[in-house]
Structure formats: structure tokens, C-alpha cells
């Protein structure tokens, strides 16, 4: 009897921890991880992004069970699953709507970083990893949109793949290599399927892990943009920090509840969201002989698409489009202010950022509109404004981002 007790000293938990450091991991990553106590509503979107990622994986696993990649089978298999397989009418739209919600959350998460300077040192790499997640997510979403093989899937893929044809020299061969045929077909769909369900989710998961590891290393920024690690208490913990668990895990549960409520409302009542989340031409099968009257990608790509269309030259348009995405990568080094948060920057910085946010939204709207008349003119104006932000940022931030900041974070008790 006593011999058995010795072996199991401390019970199952001790037995487990000796073999797998569960308690140690919790202490390091959650209860012992101190986050600034002045987080506001903008700090919901990181954990929500993780939630949507997990949701997409789970719903994706089930959609994959019924989906048949291929020119002749893709469209029919989606129709079949939605109409005939029990509850796939719910799970498939959850996956499709989930993609849009993923981008909503990610864009808000990025907007937060812009407002509070979360990309500034020492968090440059955290931002760059985040941008790589964004890029991988764009590829993932694009391929996911092609797979159901509706007419917008087909023509969207045609336009996007042909973008690679504008690369000097190798362009035409590269396009053929990506498609695996002289046009979009079986070979294209099956490889997109493989990338969409295996390669890219793996890459995104790995990048998310790196993003979190980097976050643990540098610590969260906060709305005041003050480093809480520079102000430690007698116990060696940041005076302005509170343990991530239980404080922020509980706060995040509130966000999750609100988010899932909104998500459910959209999935149940407005899954197409007026043609924004699912576009009308995608409710008819792919037709290589009929281009939809207006080709527009899904809303989350339209800012870049508007830039592409605004330029009256093919190669320059594609180049500016690539540049408009790549520009984000350099923001940590373009912003030369001493202070991080917009709260402690001058009016010029505030205006610059506000104009940039408006520009991004306007381009998003313009990318959904046909490319004629006033829309082209507006797209050109906002394209100029878009790049003006990145060009002006170093000067404006250096000029008015150096005012006094408080020693401690500011917040209202709640």
C-alpha cells in the first residue's frame, strides 16, 4: 500500500507534470504572462483571429469530406453537400462566411497596430510575422474562393493568375506552370485544393505560433504605447501589468460571446451579406465563355484591386498592386516617431492616419464598383493618397511624434 503511494506521490497531476510540463507551461504562458492593464476594445481581435482560424479549420475539415476537386465535380459537390447532406447547409456557409469574418478581425487587428504603434521597436518582427500571416491568409482565401468553381471563382482565378503573366521574361511560362494547363482546369483545381487544405493551413499555423512566441518575448503593446517592463514593482512584475490568465482570458470570453453572436446572425440570416461575402455570379457554375458583367473580388481584396485597375498600364498596375501590399512590411522602419501611440502624437500624425484609414475604405468600395467614369478618377486619386501615406509617414512621424508621455499607463477603472 505505502509502496503504491510512493510511486504516485502527488497524484496524477504530479505524474503528468514529471512527463509533460503542463503546469509549467500554464505558469509561463498564461498566469505568469503579464499584459498591460489598460487594454481596450481594440485588444479583442488577436484572440478572435485565433478563434476564427480554429473555426475555419474545423468547418474546413467537414467541407473537405464532401468536396470533390475537379472541373466537372467541384460545383456539383458543393451543391450536393449544401442541399442533401444533413446540416452541411450550415457548416459550408460557416466556412464561407468565416473567411470574411477572418479578414474583418485581421483588418481591425492591423488598425489597432497602426493606432498604437504596435509595430514599432521592439515589435518589428512581431509585425512582420503578422504581415506574413496576412499574405498567407490572402493566398488561402483566394484559393478557397476558386474551389467551389462558380463563375466568379473561375474569372477571379483567371484575373489573379494572369497577374503573374506581367512579370517580365518568365511571365507566360509561369502562368502555365501555375495552372498546369493552357487554361484553368482540373490540374488547377486539384493543386489549389491541396494547397488550401494542407500546405497553407500548415504554414499559417506555424506563423501563428511564431507570432505568439515573438509576442511573449517582447510583451504586448498598449493604447498608451508605454513599455510596462520598464516600470517593475518590488516583486519584479510590471506595475502596470496583470496576469493574462485569468484577467484577459475572461475579458476575451466576452469578446468571443459577442463575436459568435454576430457571426451566427450573419450565417443564419444574411450569409451572402448583400453580395459582399458571397457574390451573385458565384451562384452559377464556372463558364469559360461568359465573363460576368463586373468582375470584382471579395471585399477584402478590393482595395488592392482598385489600385490595379486605376493604373492605365498593365505592368505598372500589377507592380503598384504588389507594392501596395508589400508597403505594410516596411511600416516599422518608416515610422520614425519616438512615441508609439497616436495619443501622444500631433495633429498631423492623427490626420495622416485618419486619411489613410478613409483611403483604404474608399479603395475597398471603389474596387467593388465597375471600372468606368467617375470611379476610375476616384480610384486614381485614392491610389495616390494610399502611397502618399507611406511616403509622408517618415517625415510626419519624425516631426510631431516626440511629445511627452506619462510614466504610467492611463485607464479608467471598470
Amino acid at each position, binding site marked *: 500500500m505505502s509502496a503504491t503511494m510512493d510511486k504516485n506521490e502527488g497524484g496524477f497531476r504530479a505524474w503528468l507534470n514529471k512527463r509533460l510540463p503542463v503546469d509549467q507551461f500554464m505558469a509561463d504562458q498564461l498566469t505568469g504572462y503579464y499584459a498591460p492593464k489598460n487594454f481596450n476594445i481594440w485588444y479583442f481581435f488577436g484572440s478572435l483571429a485565433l478563434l476564427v482560424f480554429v473555426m475555419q479549420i474545423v468547418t474546413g475539415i467537414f467541407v473537405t469530406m464532401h468536396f470533390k476537386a475537379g472541373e466537372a465535380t467541384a460545383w456539383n459537390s458543393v451543391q450536393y453537400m449544401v442541399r442533401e447532406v444533413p446540416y452541411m447547409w450550415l457548416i459550408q456557409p460557416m466556412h464561407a462566411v468565416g473567411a470574411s469574418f477572418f479578414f474583418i478581425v485581421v483588418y481591425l487587428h492591423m488598425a489597432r497596430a497602426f493606432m498604437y504603434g504596435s509595430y514599432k521597436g521592439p515589435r518589428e518582427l512581431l509585425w512582420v510575422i503578422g504581415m506574413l500571416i496576412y499574405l498567407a491568409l490572402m493566398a488561402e482565401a483566394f484559393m478557397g474562393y476558386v474551389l467551389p468553381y462558380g463563375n466568379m471563382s473561375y474569372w477571379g482565378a*483567371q484575373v489573379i493568375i*494572369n497577374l503573374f503573366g506581367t512579370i517580365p521574361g518568365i511571365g507566360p511560362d509561369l502562368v502555365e*506552370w501555375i495552372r498546369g494547363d*493552357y*487554361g484553368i482546369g482540373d490540374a488547377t483545381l486539384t493543386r489549389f485544393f491541396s494547397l488550401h487544405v494542407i500546405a497553407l493551413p500548415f504554414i499559417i499555423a506555424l506563423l501563428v505560433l511564431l507570432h505568439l512566441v515573438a509576442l511573449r518575448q517582447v510583451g504586448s503593446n498598449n493604447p498608451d504605447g508605454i513599455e510596462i517592463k520598464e516600470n517593475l514593482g518590488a516583486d519584479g512584475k510590471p506595475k502596470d501589468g496583470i496576469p493574462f490568465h485569468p484577467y484577459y482570458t475572461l475579458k476575451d470570453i466576452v469578446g468571443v460571446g459577442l463575436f459568435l453572436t454576430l457571426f451566427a446572425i450573419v450565417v443564419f440570416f444574411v450569409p451572402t451579406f448583400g453580395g459582399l461575402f458571397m457574390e451573385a455570379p458565384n451562384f452559377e457554375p464556372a463558364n469559360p465563355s461568359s465573363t460576368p458583367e463586373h468582375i470584382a473580388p471579395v471585399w477584402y481584396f478590393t482595395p488592392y484591386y482598385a489600385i490595379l*485597375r486605376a493604373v492605365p*498600364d*498593365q505592368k505598372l498596375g500589377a507592380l503598384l498592386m504588389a507594392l501596395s501590399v508589400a508597403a505594410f512590411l516596411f511600416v516599422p522602419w518608416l515610422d520614425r516617431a519616438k512615441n508609439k501611440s497616436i495619443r501622444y502624437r500631433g495633429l498631423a500624425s492623427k490626420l495622416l492616419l485618419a486619411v489613410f484609414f478613409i483611403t483604404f475604405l474608399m479603395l475597398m468600395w471603389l474596387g467593388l464598383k*465597375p*471600372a468606368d467614369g467617375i470611379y476610375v478618377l476616384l480610384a486614381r486619386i485614392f491610389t495616390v493618397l494610399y502611397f502618399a501615406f507611406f511616403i509622408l509617414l517618415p517625415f510626419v512621424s519624425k516631426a510631431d511624434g516626440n511629445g511627452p508621455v506619462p510614466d504610467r499607463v492611463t485607464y479608467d477603472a471598470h
Partner: protein
Amino acid sequence: MSDHAADDTVPEVDESRRKFLIAATAGTGAVGAVLTAVPFVASWNPSESARAAGLPTEVDLSKIEPGQMATFFWRKQQIYVVKRTPEMLATLSAHDGQLKDAKSEKSDQPVYAKNDQRAIKPEVLVLIGTCTHLGCLPKTRFTPGDASVMANWPGGFFCPCHGSKFDLAGRVFEGSPASVNLKIPPYSFEGDNKLIIGVDAPAKGVA
């Protein structure tokens, strides 16, 4: 090889020898990794059957009315065949100044179609119906003066995706996002009314 004494003394490490071995191993490994990538990358190229499906397409021209267009598939690409009327042909010379590449110098077409009409026979226009901008299908806007396309529109093609405009020889207008004229596939004729898309016309003897 020198003999080592059976005691605990560690022989001195030859650093340059270590460096060389590490570099040689890493280098060999890197070459191996690149070579191993070749089959994986090459597997994305079109398969044998995809290539075989690119056979020529035959078209009976007698079934197309003058002034009309019919479409066919060749290599998964939509091919536009237009029977141009004399009135349509007459529009071609009037707007060279508005074109990006009036003489088709920068554009992609077989040598026998690199002329003012971009055709072997002026009345038969054969185009790859893929916008040279980003691959949409340009729509027919054959009615001259269609102000919804542009002022003084001579008739031609309009791409709904990004607004590129082409004339009745597939030449691109200034102000279009497309930079070059619509491509012309290799083609030839057998007799008066049989068009073969995908087979080049003989080097000479065709006017």
C-alpha cells in the same frame, strides 16, 4: 592516420579541416535539396494529356455571317472569329493616333498577321479572346458611335473587367489598362471556307 593513445587526452582539433568538412557537407546537402526540388516543381507543368488536348480546331467559315462573330475553343482559350465587312475594315485606318501599338510592333501575333488588318485575309479576323490585361473576355461592341464605350467609338471590343478597349483588329486604345493588342493564334486556311486554328500558315503564298 596517426595512432591515438588510449588515454583521456583530447587530440587537438584541426579547425580548418573541420570548417572544410562542414562547408562540404552543407554544400552537398544544399545541391541535393535543390535537385530534389526539381521533380516537385516540374510536376506543376501541363501533363501529357493536357498538352495533347491542345490539338488544332477546325472552323467552317461559311456558317458565320458578315459582320458577325463566332467563338471557338483552342487550348482552353476562347478564340474569336469575326467576318469583317468592308465598312468595318474601313474604320481601321481612321484612329491610328489613338492606339497604343497601331503597327503591332510590341504585340504578339504570327508574322503573317502582322499587317494593317492583322489578318491573312482582311475579311477574317482571328483573335485569342483573352484580354491582354488580365485575361477576361472582351465583349463585342461592334456598333460604331456607341458612346457608352467612348466618344467617337469606331466599333470593336470592350473588356468589362477593367475597361480595356480594342478596335476591330484587336488593337488596344490609349487609356486602356491593357498595354498590347489582343493576341492572334497561329492559323491557316484549307480552301476558301475552312479555318484551322493552331496550325501556322505556310511561310509564303498567302496574300
